């Protein structure tokens, strides 16, 4: 049994390290763009427009948007790492290397998901370092901050994996980030407090999961949030469990990978 676990640990680490090697090898496409995009966000929204806005939820606008921008980068990069990498494996048929090996589907899934988490966290660190040029970075509660960012990157890596299983062409892996992730991020309280929204839009925004992640992370950094932490964790953990079981079911059926 121990040997069995040890072999699967090696297999998991192999997938994880391969994924890390992949996004490090193409850092110009994976790590550099979020640094540039976020620099522009900080300059335009934080410095130029933010100075005219003043305070939001009792703190400077630059400080207010910083956690949301970091979280937005983490989410997008975790998602796109898994969706593009796993789809690329399908496209090049190198997914067959995994299918012929004695790998449980759970090891394949967790290997790719933690590859996405690794890229999400690395992007988060890079964007945080960029933010240091514009404002002070504070940590109100390290454990809340790190747990929310970890759970969010797991959740969006799982979502990226499901996207890759269903995708038949490269366009299919860019549809969800463009038409779903970006609008949800922008409406998820990155740039404004939901208190500013009319009451009916406040109700609608409660169905946006990104709102809870951004606010949970903002609470970890600044100690302010539009939502309760308990709701944030409940939604995150529930969605992770749901997407994990969907991913496993699809993998066991061979959806998109095994005719």
């Amino acid at each position, binding site marked *: 049994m121990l040997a069995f676990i040890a072999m699967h640990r090696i*297999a998991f680490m192999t997938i994880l390290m391969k994924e890390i090697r992949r996004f490090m090898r193409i850092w110009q496409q994976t790590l550099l763009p979020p640094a540039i995009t976020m620099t522009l966000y900080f300059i335009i929204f934080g410095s130029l427009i933010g100075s005219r806005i003043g305070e939001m939820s009792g703190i400077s606008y630059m400080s207010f948007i910083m956690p949301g921008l970091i979280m937005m980068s983490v989410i997008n990069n975790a998602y796109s790492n898994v969706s593009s990498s796993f789809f690329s494996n399908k496209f090049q048929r190198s997914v067959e290397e995994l299918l012929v090996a*004695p790998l449980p589907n759970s090891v394949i899934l967790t290997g790719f998901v933690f590859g996405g988490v690794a890229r999400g966290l690395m992007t988060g660190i890079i964007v945080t370092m960029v933010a240091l040029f514009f404002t002070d970075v504070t940590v109100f509660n390290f454990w809340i901050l790190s747990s929310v960012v970890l759970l969010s990157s797991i959740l969006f890596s799982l979502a990226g994996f499901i996207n890759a299983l269903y995708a038949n062409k490269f366009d299919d892996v860019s549809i969800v980030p463009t038409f779903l992730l970006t609008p949800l991020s922008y409406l998820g309280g990155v740039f404004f407090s939901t208190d500013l929204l009319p009451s009916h839009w406040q109700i609608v925004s409660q169905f946006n999961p990104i709102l809870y992640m951004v606010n949970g992370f903002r609470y970890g950094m600044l100690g302010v949030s539009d939502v309760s932490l308990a709701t944030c964790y409940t939604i995150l953990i529930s969605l992770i469990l749901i997407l994990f079981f969907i991913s496993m079911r699809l993998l066991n059926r061979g959806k998109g990978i095994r005719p």
Partner: protein
Amino acid sequence: MSLIENYSGPALSISGLGKVYDNGFVALKDVNLQVNQGDFFALLGPNGAGKSTTLGIVSGLVNKTQGKVSLLGLDLDGDIYAAKRLLGVVPQEFNFNQFEKVRDIVVTQAGYYGIEKKEAGVRADKYLKALGLWDKRDVPSRMLSGGMKRRLMIARALVHGPKVLILDEPTAGVDIELRQSMWLYLQKLNEEEGVTIILTTHYLEEAESLCKNIAIINHGEIVKNTSTKELLQELHTQTLVVDLIQAYPVRPDLKALTVTWVDDSCFEVEVNKGTAINELFEVFNDAEISVSSIRPKSNRLETLFVDLVRK
């Protein structure tokens, strides 16, 4: 593994295997097949006959609709992980990451089998050297020639030390010299290390000269499964091409031989199995014709193959 060491049954056992794809195409109807340990076995069939589907199911790349498959006594439904450890697969299409380096591909594959990185490196180096890829170990795989890519897939399939090696048309598009060296390596693997080899090929002369046993699949069913020797004995006649030293505008009398003239200095003769070649020359001598060469018209197995798949 200790269970496998004492196991003396077939390397591969397939019973009642069926596959219907989502679009309704019936790829396999009721495939029953056994491959003995240590065999060098060919699964032959025309395009779309079900070869790749059969091997895909054994390899875990295709879901079966019905039937049982076991590898060295391990049922693929019950002991899937133990069974997969015994199997190496060389697919028909290149299926590795084109951007990864050659050595990384082999080492990574070993990792999927739970082999520690250091040991994986040692094994990768061994197979890259054996297959003539050592000089290319740090080259991105997309830079390799077609033949080298095939050898890379063989190295990758061997890195975990499989007992059964499946090769789906491994010599497709490979030049003659490389094909021969590849076969020599596989023969060595079969004879010296006892690895059971199961392959599909369109080069029937290879199957005839290399494989001990042959199965022919057509329309999703096994239509023949026997030893190469017995299969060839089923041929009742063969056609020989006879080239003559001089032209004969007036055809000489060749008595009872069934002859078809190709031109004035060449004819084809159909002879029954077991006919002594001396008998032919007696007829040629009586007819006072001088023969410069005599050769079979086509590969013998090819004749049988075409007969079987046309039925």
